[in-house]
């Protein structure tokens, strides 16, 4: 009998439980620990995907809410602009261009030569534009004064185009052709 056989023989009361415990541990690892490790790794991947999906859903929701709120705010701002800044209708638009422009020109010592007005509406726009083309004569300083008065006036009048031509016979005199517009809301959509 070799010493090893003899040790095993004599210490089998200790060795057997140790061997059984080792076998149970190996079985535990194979049947429980390793499969659980794999399942947890898989669950972590699923959790990461679910978190990404939730984040994307939250971002889409925030975007939709921002769009809805932005639309409501823009709608409100547009109503304020149409009702409080722009003239109410053609009569209001005429009031702030017809007599008012002539008075401003006179105050700036510009001679009034001719004027034409037309109201027009783009197909896509809900605003009607009252466009007035004025031809005035005067000196450069008076032209500057008139333009300053017009751009600092309370009324919503837009200077769209300015043309200056020098009169041949009088070097100090200029012909000012001014295109000014104002706008009023006329539908068709209730923005």
């Amino acid at each position, binding site marked *: 009998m070799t010493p090893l056989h003899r040790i095993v023989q004599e210490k089998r009361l200790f060795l057997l439980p140790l061997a059984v415990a080792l076998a149970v541990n190996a079985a535990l690892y194979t049947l429980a620990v390793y499969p*659980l490790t794999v399942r947890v790794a898989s669950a972590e991947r699923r959790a990461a995907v679910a978190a990404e999906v939730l984040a994307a859903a939250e971002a889409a929701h925030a975007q939709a809410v921002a769009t809805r709120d932005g639309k409501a705010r823009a709608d409100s701002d*547009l109503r304020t*602009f149409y009702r409080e800044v722009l003239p109410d209708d053609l009569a209001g638009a005429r009031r702030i261009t017809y007599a008012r422009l002539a008075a401003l020109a006179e105050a700036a010592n510009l001679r009034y030569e001719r004027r034409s007005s037309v109201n027009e509406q783009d197909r896509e726009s809900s605003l009607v534009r009252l466009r007035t083309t004025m031809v005035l004569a005067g000196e450069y300083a008076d032209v500057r004064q008139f*333009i300053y008065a017009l751009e600092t006036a309370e009324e919503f009048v837009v200077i769209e185009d300015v*043309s200056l031509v020098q009169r041949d016979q009088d070097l100090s005199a200029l012909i000012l052709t001014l295109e000014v517009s104002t706008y009023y809301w006329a539908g068709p959509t209730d923005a």
Partner: protein
Amino acid sequence: MLRTNLATRPFYNERAVHVALVLVGVVVVAVTVSNVTRIVALSGRHTDLGLQVSRDEGAAREMSSQTDAVQQEIDGAELQAISDAVSEANALIGLRMFSWTELFNRIETTLPPDVMMTSVRPEVVGERVSVSMVVVGRRVDAIDQFIEALEATGSFEGLLARQEEATVDGMYRTMLRGRYLGPVTPDGDSTPEEGL
């Protein structure tokens, strides 16, 4: 009387065997504790992750249905119409805010004596203001000097003579167009436009 022949039982170090057995026992206990601990921890983690996944998936479903509800409130055609109207209103406000006095100040300080401006028209698209102007000059280099001087003010950029023709009286009529940055503040910034 001893019947065993002691000479046939070789000696071995029993203390060393005991020590080895104790060490193996300790290892077995440690491995067992480790396995049990890991099983408990992994089971808990697996349960937590499962709960987290179902909670996140439920929240995502809820969020998606809320998003659908919000999107149903938004009429795409109406949104486009409002967007167009806002762009139009902002362009008009931009034109209204446009300071012709500032523009004339810039032009006056840069216009050479033998160049005359005959027409100016601004155009506002979004936050970008472009200015087209027609000038008449005796010499092309005088018009070029005017372009350089305008850009040197910092209020203009990208000025280009888009069209040029000789007039019957021997002058040049040039249509200039470029981006107008507005009056320049002392720190070099141009003033922002206001809008809706």
